[in-house]
């Protein structure tokens, strides 16, 4: 698989994401946000975590208007895979690729811990290697991960089985404890937890390996 990792000023999880993808067998390119085009032969565009543009205005709001985002939208509209982690999730929401909003954590604190997640669906390229309702441990590190969605929209997400992950116990005030959301074509995933930080037991968990393996298995190792 060919993957592109987009880097914004203030991204800080880009390297971990590149390493996780490469270690899993992907051919990874790093693309600066001022580029305006992404070659069409990329299978996956991944938007890493961090603090793009210093979280000014709203988390992800300014990055979502970067030149590269036109190309990301084009890739998404052509049915390409897009992954947004943490700040990347915030950016996908600001781009309108995932519904809802991410607000300040209900406890107002920056949360840096490794909570248990519940895999809510097995039916996506991102979660195919997990069992439905499997419990996994993936770290979070965020201040604005409180997922908000109207009840009507939540009904749509549930009906379409688009909640990918939820926190086993309430973490940040998210509606229904939602931690990750799929697009309607199931090819775009936004999630607050960091699977790229769960690649080795030495750092606490290796539950992220199955995540990236599923993605790379999609199109074969490079």
């Amino acid at each position, binding site marked *: 698989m060919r993957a592109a990792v987009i880097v914004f000023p203030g991204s800080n999880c880009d390297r971990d994401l590149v390493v996780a993808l490469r270690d899993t067998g992907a051919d990874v390119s790093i693309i600066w946000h001022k580029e305006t085009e992404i070659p069409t032969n990329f299978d996956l565009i991944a938007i890493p975590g961090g603090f793009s543009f210093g979280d000014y*205005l*709203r988390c992800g*709001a*300014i990055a979502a*208007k970067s030149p590269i985002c036109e190309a990301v939208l084009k890739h998404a509209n052509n049915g390409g895979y897009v992954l947004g982690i943490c700040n990347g999730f915030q950016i996908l929401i*600001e781009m309108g690729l995932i*519904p*809802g*909003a991410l*607000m*300040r*954590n*209900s*406890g*107002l604190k920056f949360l840096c811990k490794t909570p248990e997640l519940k895999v809510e669906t097995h039916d996506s390229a991102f979660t195919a290697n997990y069992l439905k309702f499997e419990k996994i441990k993936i770290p979070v590190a965020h201040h604005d991960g*409180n997922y*908000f969605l109207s009840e009507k929209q939540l009904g749509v997400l549930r009906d379409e089985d688009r909640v990918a992950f939820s926190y086993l116990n309430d973490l940040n*005030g998210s509606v229904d404890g939602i931690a990750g959301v799929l697009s309607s074509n199931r090819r775009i995933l936004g999630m607050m937890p960091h699977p790229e930080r769960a690649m080795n037991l030495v750092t606490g968990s290796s539950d992220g390996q199955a995540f990236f393996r599923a993605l790379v298995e999609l199109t074969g190792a490079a």
Partner: protein
Amino acid sequence: MKVAVTVMLKNGVLDPQGEAVRSALLGLGFFDVKGVRQGKVIELDLADGTDLNEVDEMCKQLLVNSVIESYTVESI
């Protein structure tokens, strides 16, 4: 010309920061405070004669997240 765009969380959207400010005010003995909502003000310095519809467009495209926020525009 200058305008001020006031951005507030919509009613019904929980405002944890406003809530924290409220409880701090209560802690200081201001028992009359029934609720606090915290928002932000963005001042725009615009060329004279700028159409206010353009400010609306700025709000829609960047300044405001209409999922959770509402806004008002005022000349200052």
